């Protein structure tokens, strides 16, 4: 072959091979199909009530017809602008949503209830439910999402798949599965056997005996003023009854003896155990697991990176200093109170005492 031709072919071939991977790049550069900034949500969808606020806006147009249904004691059906069916219930005894007389207990419409209602057992709601009045669920109801303008009470073994928000009290009887976000502007009460992920309310009572737990701030006048921090590179035990005036950071395991009082915050890289009746004015942080004994009071956030168990009688936060309890898995004994948020990324569960 002619050497000049061979050189040209070689150059063309090499150039083509070099250009091939650049072709998609050049096309993307030219067309800018993915040139928008990453979607950093400026309005903070992490707010627990985000979806309930959105749903309230979504059904705003139905509120007037809903009032008309209530006034007329009638039921009305129709379609939302996005094509979803809706069902407006204006009569307390109206169970039309049970598939309008068919023998199945599935409801595929967005449901808005205009007055106080008590649901029958075993109904599955595939779409959101809005309750303008008191809402009492039956046993084994399944909700996609639920917004109540007053109190919500779920029957035994009910399920919420995405979120529920009550302007009043939210209460779930035994063995409910509460996935996603559960919030109340006033109070959440879960009975034992309930599973949950994220709870938020000014007052969260877990289990039957929780109401006996006192608000920690009524008993303390001490404002946390920790003086410096104590760094420990191995396991540490804070003796029962000790008063610790500093922040404490330990690389090893940490045990806080019964009745001890910590004016600062506590962090351990490994397992943390907290004895009965301990008071912590700051936060409790474990990079591993955490076990909090009975009758403790913790003012600040309680965080465990791998799992947490809290025994009965313990109170986290107070009405004046709400807080967050968070771990991938949380096991809370019957009789624990949290003021603020409980967030179990994987699963939380209220277990019977003992």
């Amino acid at each position: 072959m002619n050497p000049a031709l061979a050189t040209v072919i070689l150059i063309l071939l090499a150039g083509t091979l070099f250009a091939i991977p650049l072709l998609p790049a050049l096309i993307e550069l030219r067309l800018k199909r993915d040139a928008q900034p990453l979607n950093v949500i400026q309005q903070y969808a992490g707010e627990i009530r985000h979806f309930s606020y959105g749903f309230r806006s979504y059904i705003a147009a139905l509120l007037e017809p809903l009032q008309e249904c209530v006034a007329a004691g009638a039921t009305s059906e129709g379609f939302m602008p996005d094509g979803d069916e809706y069902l407006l219930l204006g009569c307390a005894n109206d169970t039309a949503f049970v598939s309008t007389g068919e023998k199945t207990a599935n409801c595929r419409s967005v449901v808005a209830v205009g007055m106080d209602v008590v649901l029958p057992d075993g109904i599955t709601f595939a779409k959101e439910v809005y309750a303008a009045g008191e809402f009492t669920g039956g046993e084994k109801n399944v909700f996609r999402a639920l917004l109540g303008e007053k109190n919500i009470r779920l029957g035994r073994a009910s399920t919420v798949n995405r979120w529920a928000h009550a302007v009043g009290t939210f209460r779930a009887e035994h063995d409910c599965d509460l996935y996603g976000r559960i919030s109340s502007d006033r109070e959440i009460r879960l009975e034992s056997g309930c599973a949950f992920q994220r709870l938020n309310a000014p007052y969260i009572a877990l289990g039957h005996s929780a109401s006996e737990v006192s608000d920690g701030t009524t008993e303390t006048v001490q404002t946390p003023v920790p003086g410096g921090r104590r760094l420990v590179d191995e396991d540490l035990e804070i003796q029962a009854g000790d008063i610790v005036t500093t922040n404490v950071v330990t690389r090893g395991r940490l045990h806080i003896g019964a009745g001890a009082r910590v004016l600062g915050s506590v962090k351990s890289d490994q397992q943390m155990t907290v004895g009965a009746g301990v008071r912590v004015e700051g936060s409790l942080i474990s990079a591993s697991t955490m076990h909090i004994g009975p009758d403790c009071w913790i003012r600040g956030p309680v965080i465990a990176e791998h799992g947490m168990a809290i025994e009965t009688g313990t109170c986290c936060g107070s009405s004046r200093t709400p807080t967050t309890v968070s771990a991938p898995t949380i096991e809370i004994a019957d009789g624990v109170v949290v003021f603020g948020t409980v967030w179990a990324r994987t699963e939380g569960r209220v277990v019977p005492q003992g």
Partner: protein
Amino acid sequence: MLYSLFAIVVLISVYTARHYLFTLNRLFGFQRHPYIDIDTADWPQVTILVAAHNEEKVVAHILTALMSVNYPTERMLVVPVNDRSTDGTREIIDRFCEEYPNRIRPFHRAGGKGGKAAALKDAMELVETEVILIFDADYIPGTGLIKQLVAPFFDPEVGGVMGRVVPLNVGTNLLTRLLDLERSGGYQVDQQARMNLRLVPQHGGTVAGVRLSALREIGGWNDNSLTEDTDLTFRLLLAGWKTVYQNRSECYEEVPETWQVRIKQIMRWAKGHNQALAGYGLKLLFGKHRATLRERIDGFLLLGVYAMAPLTLVGWILALALFYEGVAPLHGVIALLSFTAYAATGNFAAFFEIAAAARLDYTRQRIRLLPFLVLGFGVSIFSVTRACISQLSAPVTGAQFHWDKTERFRATP
């Protein structure tokens, strides 16, 4: 020459392995976000410092955004640090102060040493809170960002916090698109992997926070440093404080739109990083302090990142020289160097990292620009080398370090 080449090959291989480790950890490892769920708390008082030097194009945006965040207003004070601005920055800040008299307290600085660290140091006279957040003026924080950045300070071990930086002006040109990919890899993979592996997440000096008592313990801001953020990271580490990274605390920034500005920026970063390497490298590795072995190693590698650019160049030159000298036993080494240098330019490790970041961000098309990153890499390696040479020759040439502000491109409001 042979042993120098060997040493460079080993170093490049270490960095390549590090990139792989981080990427695989992000894709398959346990992800740590321990503080992100703290959404209810007795939130502490916080001071938010907004560093502003001739920022008339952008400062109104950040002040507006900060007035809209969901942090309790009575517990938050915004302090715009107007550092010797000669444009309309002062007037804009004063206008906001009139509108929000109890929420914004300006710090106007007419003289003094140049640089962000020096300005922040002077502004500390207005800071009375234990938690301080820092933003550059071109950032636009979202509604929930302040709570997210304050939350880690409930951990008594945390001295510094860093959020994720997300470019806003992505679509402007090739450079901004490449910087978007680089940032994505750097934060989504690199920083979060360091957080996961309990290594040394780097304080970025913006979208960031620092604990006042920790800052005082380490002697405050170092106004001799060109990168006060890197300097802060390592002084905190040496004093037994952790810096944590919050990948979900995202904030928009403006990236450079011209290569000239980008080169200036990366040269300043390189000089500042090398300053920190010289100042803290050996102390970090061998000193008596609380850092773990893995923190010592990762911290040292982090400090050495910018020193690798000239070393890679030297490696290439050595390999070529040895090849043309016909040193037969070196053929294997040359092959090895070629492979590792190829990997170090991004075709393997760094590119893998960025591709993984794009996947984690659920972006699809922009990853097609990956081959163009070679261009960005080339510019960086020569700019960083130039910075290193100028830094090394400074004692002879008498050149003074000075702080170059990054130019803004946003339209004036």
